């Protein structure tokens, strides 16, 4: 029996020893072989992880870039199978592609695969992302001519059919993907109808004020845009080919190609019953990317990053944000990988300010912050009518987001405003302020999700390692 001193000493040494062993010869498994998985793997090697690295993915290809698939790939500017992501460094990984994870044993620390194999791990990074939400009627979804767009295979099939010259394309859903597909169709000279349940395109992401500009863009480019309408049924001919769509306004539309763009579903089914806090909205994790179990306890060996993660953000009332943004996949994977192989005091929170871009109808749309949290919007530069502007979103007296149409140069400034919880409406005069930008107007989100009252938080420091959270009193 050892003395108290010896026990204390061995206990004190154990974490360091085991961490050193993990970094030297541990087994890290990454489930999900896309952008977040790849950047996570690179960060692990960058920070000195020398053990074994296994990357599991159900798609056949090495990680590839998805944003081009709804843009240059559809108009023939790039091949669908040629968007493989460049590497930042060699990762010496063992790839298990065309292999889906089907289960997780948290106690035995093993991932089950669909080929019957099991892969043991010391640390697990979950980056399984999301998939297209399928058309809800399976028989209709099976019709020849009905597509979704998420993978490079999807883009290849859809691109081929667009090139074949369909009579009319139907895009179901006018979010970013649907709008970009409609834009590509017009660039190809194809007749296209967009059916959107909400009052305008992009209304969920950017609100109705900006959505109205998106609607104008679509119509000016010849899109037959129908808002506040739903597709109720897709009808096929005797050979199983799509021929008609039925709409909720009682009309029907003859189409031979339909793209279902109804958003994404998180890939968490493989975690059912694992005891991890995973569900349709993603895998919940703390700001350091550690997954929660179903009891709400944080795990210390399972990490999450990218589209599938849902984590609290101090800038936005500690609400859990799930962001299917390219930049988030990169930034969160870097933090997760760093924390996986770092001792507690050296770990970092994921404090990335959400940012995304879209290009459609020749306009560059970019956003920073969380627009959907905005109650009001102020057009601080340019004008809605010219389709060239910077809009600032405010919530409870502070700046929470900004969006630009062909005015990207202003975004860095607004990022600082968001990070410092600057007051809204901005008290200063801005360059190129027009009469319609003198007062904020309701941002017109269909279902505004208001943050809870609480302290506002600002970020300071420049280097990611220097960032610290500073609390400031609530503005009310």
């Amino acid at each position: 029996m050892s003395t108290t001193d010896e026990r204390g000493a061995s206990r004190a040494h154990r974490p360091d020893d085991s961490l050193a062993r993990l970094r030297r010869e541990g087994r890290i498994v990454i489930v999900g072989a896309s952008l977040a998985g790849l950047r996570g793997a690179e960060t692990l090697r960058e920070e000195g992880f020398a053990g074994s690295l296994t990357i599991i993915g159900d798609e056949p290809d090495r990680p590839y870039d998805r944003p081009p698939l709804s843009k240059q790939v559809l108009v023939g500017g790039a091949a669908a199978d040629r968007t493989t992501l460049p590497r930042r460094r060699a990762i010496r990984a063992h790839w298990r592609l065309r292999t889906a994870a089907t289960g997780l044993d948290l106690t035995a620390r093993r991932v089950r695969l669909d080929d019957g194999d099991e892969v043991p791990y010391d640390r697990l990074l979950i980056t399984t992302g999301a998939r297209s939400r399928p058309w809800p009627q399976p028989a209709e979804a099976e019709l020849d001519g009905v597509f979704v767009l998420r993978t490079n295979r999807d883009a290849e099939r859809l691109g081929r059919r667009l090139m074949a010259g369909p009579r009319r394309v139907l895009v179901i859903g006018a979010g970013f993907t649907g709008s970009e597909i409609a834009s590509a169709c017009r660039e190809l000279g194809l007749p296209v109808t967009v059916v959107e349940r909400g009052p305008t395109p992009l209304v969920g992401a950017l609100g109705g004020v900006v959505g109205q500009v998106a609607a104008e863009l679509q119509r000016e480019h010849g899109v037959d845009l129908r808002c506040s309408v739903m597709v109720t049924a897709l009808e096929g001919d005797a050979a199983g080919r799509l021929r008609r769509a039925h709409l909720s306004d009682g009309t029907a539309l003859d189409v031979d190609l339909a793209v279902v763009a109804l958003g994404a579903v998180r890939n968490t089914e493989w975690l059912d019953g694992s005891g991890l806090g995973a569900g349709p909205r993603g895998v919940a994790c703390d700001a350091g990317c550690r997954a929660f179990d179903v009891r709400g306890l944080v795990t210390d060996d399972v990490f999450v990053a990218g589209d599938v993660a849902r984590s609290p953000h101090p800038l936005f009332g500690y609400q859990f944000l799930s962001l299917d943004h390219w930049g988030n996949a990169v930034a969160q994977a870097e933090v997760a990988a760093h924390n996986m192989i770092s001792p507690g005091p050296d770990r970092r929170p994921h404090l990335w300010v959400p940012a995304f871009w879209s290009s459609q109808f020749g306009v560059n749309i970019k956003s920073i912050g969380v627009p959907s949290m905005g109650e009001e919007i102020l057009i601080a530069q340019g004008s809605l009518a010219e389709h060239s502007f910077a809009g600032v979103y405010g919530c409870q007296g502070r700046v929470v987001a900004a969006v630009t149409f062909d005015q990207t140069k202003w975004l860095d400034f607004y990022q600082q405003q968001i990070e410092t919880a600057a007051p809204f409406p901005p008290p200063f005069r801005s360059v190129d302020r027009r009469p319609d930008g003198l007062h904020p107007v309701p941002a017109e989100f269909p279902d505004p999700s208001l943050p809870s009252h609480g302290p506002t938080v600002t970020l300071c420091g420049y280097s990611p390692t220097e960032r610290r959270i500073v609390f400031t009193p609530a503005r009310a």
Partner: protein
Amino acid sequence: MRLVVDLNRCQGYAQCVFLAPDVFSLNGEEALRYTPYVDDARREQVAAAMAACPVQAILMDDVVDDMMDDPLPAAFDVHH
């Protein structure tokens, strides 16, 4: 080579468009379009574009990095 541009960083300075016009183009006023896979003949052009990018948003690699990966298991090739 494989190419990706961080379009969150990109601010449309369009230096790359002047230096590698076969690879980069502007769609409208400031939306950047690029070819994600370029052949060796364009290497110098793209390297110049990377160096000139004021926000350093362009990443390019050589596929040789993949050779450092563990070989895929034999079963992978046999069954697929």
